[in-house]
């Protein structure tokens, strides 16, 4: 793509680095900003700059936050259970269900030596020491992706926690609510049959 201005070209170059954005969309966004009042652009750039400079990760649970002491220590929370997830969006998704009021632990990725990610590159050590130093914790829920890498990470954490005697659970895998049984893939269906639950009316 050829640009009439080097300034535009540079902006397009930077914007198109973002995931899901190609050159054309980047150009549209850049030109849109130029049509808006100057302030709109400055607000955006300062918001991004501040985000980058001031963002913190909670020391305990590694959730993205404004301070290193995030709301995870909030008195309303159930501090006896920790839910282990891969990334921040997973925390939000689980919170939005309204079904969970416990603590979180964000690993920041999953084990995959192929991609150069070993256990030391995700927050597993910190999870173990957190559990060992806090005797209030009675249960760890593993809520990781149902992929081979997610499973490996779950198995590994379970192995490390074996001696501690703490209860380790994993989220159920099965048929999505509102979907037809005949369209479910065999692995999921098979798993939901073997891990079936008691039917209750409530």
């Amino acid at each position, binding site marked *: 793509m050829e640009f009439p201005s080097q300034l535009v070209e540079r902006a397009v170059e930077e914007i198109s680095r973002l995931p899901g954005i190609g050159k054309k969309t980047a150009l549209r966004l850049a030109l849109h900003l130029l049509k808006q009042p100057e302030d709109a652009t400055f607000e955006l750039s300062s918001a991004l700059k501040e985000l980058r400079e001031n963002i913190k990760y909670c020391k305990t649970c590694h959730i993205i936050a404004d301070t290193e002491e995030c709301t995870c220590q909030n008195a309303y929370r159930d501090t006896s259970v920790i839910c282990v997830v891969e990334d921040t969006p997973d925390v939000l998704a689980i919170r939005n269900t309204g079904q969970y009021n416990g603590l979180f632990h964000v690993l920041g990725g999953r*084990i*995959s*030596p*192929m991609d150069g990610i*070993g*256990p030391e590159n995700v927050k597993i050590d910190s999870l173990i020491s957190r559990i060992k130093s806090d005797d209030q914790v009675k249960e760890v829920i593993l809520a990781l992706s149902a992929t*081979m*890498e997610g*499973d*490996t990470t779950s*198995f*590994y954490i379970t*192995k*490390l926690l074996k001696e501690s005697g703490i209860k380790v659970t994993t989220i159920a895998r099965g048929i999505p609510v509102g979907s037809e049984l005949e369209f479910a*893939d*065999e*692995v999921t269906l098979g798993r939901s049959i073997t891990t079936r639950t008691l039917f209750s009316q409530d």
Partner: protein
Amino acid sequence: MILKGLKLTSFKNHPESSFEFGERINCVLGKNGVGKTNLLDAIYYLSFTKSAVGSQDRLAITHDERAFTLFGTYEELTIAIQFEKGKVKTLKIDGQEPERLSDVIGKVPLVIVLPDDTSMIKEGSEERRKFFDGALSQFDGEYLKSLLKYNKVLKQRNSLLKIEDGRSLNKKLLETYDDQLIPLAVDISNKRQEMKEVFLPFLQKNYADLHEGGEVPGLNFKTHVTEGFEGRFKANAQKDQIMQRTLMGSHKDDFEFLLDGELIKKFGSQGQQKTFIIALKLALYDFLKEKTGKKPLLLLDDIFDKLDDSRIELLVSLLLDHDRFQQIFITDARKDRSKVLFKKEKEVNFIEL
């Protein structure tokens, strides 16, 4: 299965071609380099989403084009494949995109015979494993899933063994991979063992049909995955660590090809090797027909080459068996030969490229 029509766009040396096929024997004629094998490869692509000759997707695109498209109309379904440079391959079965590309495997069972198939005899164990894996995958979707997962776990385990930065190997993580790998290996190698048992009679019958010399073909399945595999596999961890890869497992299985109990690789003549391969492929045909209840497509590329006249006649008379075979695709660079061989047969459809 019957492939009624095929459209190729920018696929290898077919910029824009469209074919209609007969229900029985389709004889593709033309000089070297006009795209006979590529036509067969396109049919193979629709069954397996990849090339039969092992070329990469981007090399299948016509020079100077951006994408290729294949559209096959079968009696019961349609399959379309599109690949654009720098994008992921898309597949549609009856216009719907399945969850995984591998979902198409087995929809249209297919057996292909290529001129360089004798490399299966000469080369290492990988080619032979591929043959039997392909056979199993076409009727056992669970096998294919186990195999794909096995390969993924193996790749991760090998990457872990390769990490060299002074730190000692993470034993617990290695165990995590072992615990996933071992049951998969047991599953895969057991199924291969069963496959060998079931397949052997098919091979022996077909070899006898093609050759009256009285030699008996055999298969010998070699694997690490037998009684006590788990213990031996775990005991081997240190060697794995030194070699930085996994030395034991299903990925080392081998199917040895034998003739009268001897390795055909070492003792078989060229003719015996070629006969063995054709018998192997026809056995696969019979095997898949029995297992899937469908008549697979049979693709024969340049099969008459290197065979003497009596063998060719024998082979042609086998192929004319209506009850056994349905749709067949044959390529031949020598037009006159094929026209003579099939001159009596009404159901032969000649396609001249």
